[in-house]
């Protein structure tokens, strides 16, 4: 018989429950309130008293209400039918909820248990299998979806029976497995997994090395992220975090995209709900929503569920990774998640760390980021979770605990900068402060040499040096005045401005410029770096500015035109003419 309890105290969404039997840390329980059952999680136990955080509003709760314990931690349901769903932080299907307003204690299953799926076995009777091995396959949104041995199964099993190819509902048994004591265990297409536990049913986790193309030039060229890599985007408000995240999620070359809207604005989530079903996946031509799952826990939804939402999203990502897929997980914003941790820690009257965050914040962040990665599955196939989180630093100060904790965990750093945003240089990623550690990986370098070009990385480094030099020169000009420096300084500065305006800046709202495929990036980078290597002749600095503004304008018109179209070539011809006017020496590579 499961444990029961009685409410003894209420402090906001922290409820104290006196229990009559054993309970476990993080166990889920339900407070019975009229017809509703309010879900809660144990976060502290003192003697016979369990402290539970309630995932709903606690208005009207009274001492003496009954509580039922579930004997399991917070779990998600995994199975075919998750794609295209709009879920909340506890994996409820938001579309199945009735009415305009969310009601306390209303829970809806993300899967349609009666829905039929075409099942094709991949394993046969007598096969030895272990957790996460593929038993069969179905098709979800035209994409293969593997049915696996449940992740919770420990040790090895033998397949006693498996159904033939055919149509089955999620309730139907599709295989019977025998454990080492010959107990029979029936398996369906649905399984459960506790969200806070990392799923480790894979063979190994090597260093990631494959470029994940995002179509955003400043990322792909200057700070590339890889399949299975981690990155974070810190930035003060108004610097374009969300626009950048949306751009990446629309364009990235991934099989599955999971967006965790964690404590952010509801209207931004609505934007995804509205646009994604309309937009096409640039790689497959199908609707973006077909490969997307949205986990929405907006800022006005209960705080405790906000904490759960990032774990829910990560667990679903791990499920799809185990099928050998490339998953991209975006969380906006991890600061809101950290704030949820802070609110709870505060109510538990724990001794606070910096800025009143819990002491173990940085360990919690690192633990979460480490669940991403590129893995080799037991059958030798590979899968990956690329994780990009945004951070909303308080006061735009990057020395606050969430940013610092994340910096230790994530390998790419896309620093959004107020000054760049103010001068409308979007995406406002600071090209000098940002970094990608992957660019130093020899594995990555080899991969780029093979798939893009052996000129690529040297050219990127040359570009970064020019940007650095341009910044130094600009500071000199600001101190000494336009007349106080040699003309060469102006030329260097304007060459770095070409890179800034043509390569780094990108118009996320222009239909053509928004997405820049790698071939086009390579073409433009060559073009631009070619120009920066040329020698020019001028009489004074006003000429230099006027001239390079014209060059930038033509190059930008190229960015706005369809690649290799007549219009594009027309502008390219204009550029050649323009260059002829002033170039003395063609040092083109």
């Amino acid at each position, binding site marked *: 018989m499961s444990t029961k309890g009685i409410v003894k105290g209420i402090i906001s969404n922290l409820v104290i429950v006196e229990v009559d039997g054993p309970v476990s840390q993080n166990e889920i329980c339900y407070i019975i309130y009229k017809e509703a059952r309010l879900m809660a999680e144990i976060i502290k136990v003192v003697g016979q008293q369990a402290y539970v955080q309630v995932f709903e509003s606690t*208005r009207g709760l009274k001492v003496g209400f009954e509580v039922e314990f579930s004997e399991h931690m917070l779990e998600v349901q995994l199975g075919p039918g998750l794609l295209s769903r709009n879920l909340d932080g506890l994996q409820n299907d938001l579309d199945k909820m009735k009415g305009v307003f969310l009601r306390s204690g209303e829970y809806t299953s993300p899967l349609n248990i009666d829905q039929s799926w075409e099942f094709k076995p991949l394993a046969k009777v007598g096969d030895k299998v272990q957790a996460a091995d593929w038993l069969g396959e179905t098709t979800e949104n035209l994409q293969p979806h593997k049915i696996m041995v449940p992740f919770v199964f420990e040790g090895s099993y033998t397949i006693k029976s498996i159904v033939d190819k055919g149509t089955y509902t999620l309730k139907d048994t599709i295989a019977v497995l025998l454990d080492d004591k010959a107990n029979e265990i029936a398996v369906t297409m649905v399984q459960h997994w506790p969200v806070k536990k990392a799923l480790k049913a894979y063979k190994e986790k090597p260093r990631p090395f494959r470029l994940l193309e995002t179509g955003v030039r400043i990322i792909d060229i200057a700070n590339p992220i890889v399949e299975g890599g981690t990155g974070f985007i810190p930035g003060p408000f108004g610097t374009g975090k969300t626009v950048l995240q949306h751009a990446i999620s629309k364009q990235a070359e991934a099989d599955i995209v999971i967006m965790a809207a964690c404590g952010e604005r509801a209207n931004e989530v*609505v934007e995804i709900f509205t646009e994604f079903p309309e937009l096409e996946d640039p790689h497959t031509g199908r609707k973006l929503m077909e490969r997307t799952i949205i986990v929405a826990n907006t800022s006005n939804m209960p705080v405790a569920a906000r904490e759960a939402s990032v774990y829910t999203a990560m667990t679903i990502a791990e499920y799809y990774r185990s099928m050998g897929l490339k998953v991209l997980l975006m969380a906006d914003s991890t600061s809101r998640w950290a704030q949820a941790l802070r*609110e709870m820690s505060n109510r538990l009257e724990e001794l606070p760390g910096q800025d009143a965050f819990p002491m173990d914040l940085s360990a919690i962040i690192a633990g979460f980021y480490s669940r991403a990665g590129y893995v080799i599955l037991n059958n030798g196939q590979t899968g990956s979770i690329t994780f990009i989180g945004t951070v909303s630093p308080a006061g735009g100060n990057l020395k606050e605990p969430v940013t610092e904790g994340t910096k230790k965990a994530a390998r790419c750093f896309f620093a959004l900068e107020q000054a760049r945003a103010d001068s409308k240089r979007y995406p406002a990623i600071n090209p000098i402060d940002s970094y990608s550690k992957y660019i130093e990986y020899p594995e990555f370098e080899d991969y780029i040499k093979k798939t893009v070009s052996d000129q690529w990385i040297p050219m990127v480094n040359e570009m970064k040096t020019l940007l650095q030099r341009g910044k130094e020169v600009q500071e000199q000009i600001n101190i000494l*005045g336009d007349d106080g420096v040699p003309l060469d300084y102006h030329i260097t500065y304007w060459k770095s401005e070409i890179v800034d305006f043509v390569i780094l800046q990108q118009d996320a*709202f222009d239909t053509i410029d928004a997405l820049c495929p790698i071939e086009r990036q390579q073409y433009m980078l060559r073009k631009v770096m070619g120009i920066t290597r040329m020698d020019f002749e001028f009489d004074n600095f006003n000429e230099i500015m006027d001239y390079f503004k014209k060059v930038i304008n033509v190059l930008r018109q190229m960015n706005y035109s369809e690649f290799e179209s007549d219009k594009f070539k027309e502008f390219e011809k204009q550029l050649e003419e323009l260059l002829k006017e002033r170039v003395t020496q063609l040092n083109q590579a």
Partner: protein
Amino acid sequence: MATKAFQKIYTKITQITKATCSLRAANVGNEELATVDGNLAQVVKIIGDEVTLQVFGGTEGLRTNAEVVFMGKAPSLRVGDQLSGRFFNAFGDPIDGGPVPEGKEVEIGGPSVNPVRRKQPSELIATGIAGIDLNNTLVSGQKIPFFADPDQPYNQVMANVALRAKTDKIILGGMGLTNDDYLYFKNIFSNAGVLDHIISFVNTTENPPVERLLIPDMALTAAEYFAVEKNEKVLVLLTDMTLYADALSIVSNRMDQIPSKDSMPGSLYSDLAKIYEKAVQFPDGGSITIIAVTTLSGGDITHAIPDNTGYITEGQLFVRRDTDIGKVIVDPFRSLSRLKQLVIGKKTRDDHPQLMNAAVRLFADAANAKTKLENGFDLSDYDERCLDFAKEYSAQILAIDVNIDTTEMLDTTWKILASHFRVEELNIKQDLVTKYMPKVS
């Protein structure tokens, strides 16, 4: 508030602090209202049979044998058409001498809208102020604050915006308003002859500060009634949210909570988000738009209140005095409307997005030129042209006394640009230049 028959009266208060009192009581619900010697209070904590009440008016002079009566409900408001044109206090009681309105009783601070039931905002709210309509276009269902120092005319600008915007209802939530400002709003609304579209919930500096915690929820509960039941476009004005947050920190301090940044409660983000996220566009046409005021201290937006607000709201509006033209302008650099992308170039002319960006970028170049001038450097011809442009742009577009329609704003901007710059200095798509740029002789 009179006690009803058969209600249990408690007379044994066991603990009193500056804002709270505790007593032993049974069968009490969390967040339930109570009266303590007739003063309103709310349940904030229950441990066993000990109930802690937050007394809105403060506990000065509270007796340990005061009469405590629990009302069995959370704070609520009677909603109905009779609310129109009336002034109420933080508890929803009339302060204009009129009768108590009748209507359905609704608990304030109700549940959030299911995000999948929201509609993407897409209706432009025109204000005639070009600094807003052109550069920071407002959209119905948006939430946006004015960030302003206390000496700036934010209440006047807000009142102007409210009166010019075409909405069905305006709901004013005044928190810590000075009596003078309260009368200002009252006068300007009645002089405009629109009083019957306006509902006000007002807490002035003469009222206890903790009471103002109820104001936003009162105003938004009324707004939800008109937006959901009547499908009306409702504009909610909240001024001043900084004073609201101050009240939050007073309460959290008295409840012995560990303060986080700037002595604000750790839950400040969630507390503010619960209010601002009530802004919504419903599919049936009703909408709630929130325009708020967050006063700053010396323009510091890194303080916890504006900082958290900025992360919640869909942009912010800054007003400042432009010394070159001697007028108050909407600052084009620091102001931002995040939802403008949903309407500009779609509900307005197709050149709007690029033209707006070009003008703001050149205005930034003018600011750089000004710095150069102040530092004693020679100005180039381009710098000079930027400065001339900036003056005209400030006076004809950014000043808050401008009142023209959006197409006129675009034409004016083109005219000013064309008289100072060459095509290649604009960085605007060629097609748009050909279509709209006037020829200068």
